[in-house]
């Protein structure tokens, strides 16, 4: 039952994603062509609010609602895989016009054809899992 709250968060998050048009292929094209501030404004202000929130949580040692200490885990720096994987994802991001969150949102919003890139994304993860030990990181 404790997972109900994550469904509710997801519903709100999915609503924001579609109402902001961040799920739009056209908006992503506008961004990569530097023809509008919209997507930069969304990502920039989201990071700003996120960073300030983390500063406040750290400074005032804010705990979770259930009194646990909030643990931060920084993702490790892997120079080769961060940049190479990043570029590969970026190619897909521009081609499909959405990153993983918007994929789910587009499908939910009635663009059922997006199940195709969702399934091939899952296959992409599977192939990565098979090749992981052989890839440079």
């Amino acid at each position: 039952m404790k997972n109900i709250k994550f469904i509710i968060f997801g519903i709100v998050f999915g609503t924001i994603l579609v109402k902001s048009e961040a799920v739009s292929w056209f908006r992503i094209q506008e961004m990569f062509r530097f023809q509008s501030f919209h997507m930069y404004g969304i990502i920039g202000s989201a990071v700003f609010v996120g960073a300030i929130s983390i500063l406040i949580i750290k400074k005032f040692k804010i705990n979770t609602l259930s009194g646990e200490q909030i643990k931060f885990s920084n993702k490790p720096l892997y120079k080769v895989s961060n940049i190479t994987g990043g570029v590969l994802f970026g190619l897909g991001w521009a081609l499909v016009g959405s990153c993983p969150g918007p994929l789910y949102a587009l499908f939910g919003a009635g663009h059922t054809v997006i199940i195709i890139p969702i399934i091939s994304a899952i296959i992409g993860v599977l192939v990565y899992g098979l090749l992981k030990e052989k890839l440079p990181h």
Partner: protein
Amino acid sequence: MNFITEPWPWYVSGPLIGLFVPLLLIIGNKQLGISSSLKHICAACLPVQKIPFFNYDWKKNTWNLFLVLGITLGAFITNYIVDLNYEILISDATKVDLSEMGITNFIGFIPAEIYSWNTTLPNLILMVLGGFLIGFGTRYANGCTSGHAIMGLSLLNVGSLVAVVGFFIGGLIMTHLLFPLIF
């Protein structure tokens, strides 16, 4: 403005997205991240337990699957209440560029000329390839726009910054170098 029928400007939606960073931390002690849901789906639904990458207890990460289920539902409900098949008001310059690629239908979130069920085989291959790059790339980079760009940059994490630079290099290569060859 009407918040139900009209799209939300960046200065409303961006900060709201950013608030999910403290919300998930304070209520669930979780760090925002969406692409790992694809890995959990693999581990949960496919016979992959012999592969070390998938040999972990995905049940400990069910919150992430519930989050993406919610995202799907949220978009579904919003589309039910307000029809989301409207024309997105993108900049005129983008419209001109896209028209030159043969994209003239700006109704809905995705270009119907490329991404629809009755599309051509080459476009179908593009959809499959694009999805594959999203899945493979996010795992290789260890995160996506939410985990690296929003959560990682909020933590001032160097690896996330490297990954985000990669995301943009990839997006720019696709848009400016490959799209003219494809479309």
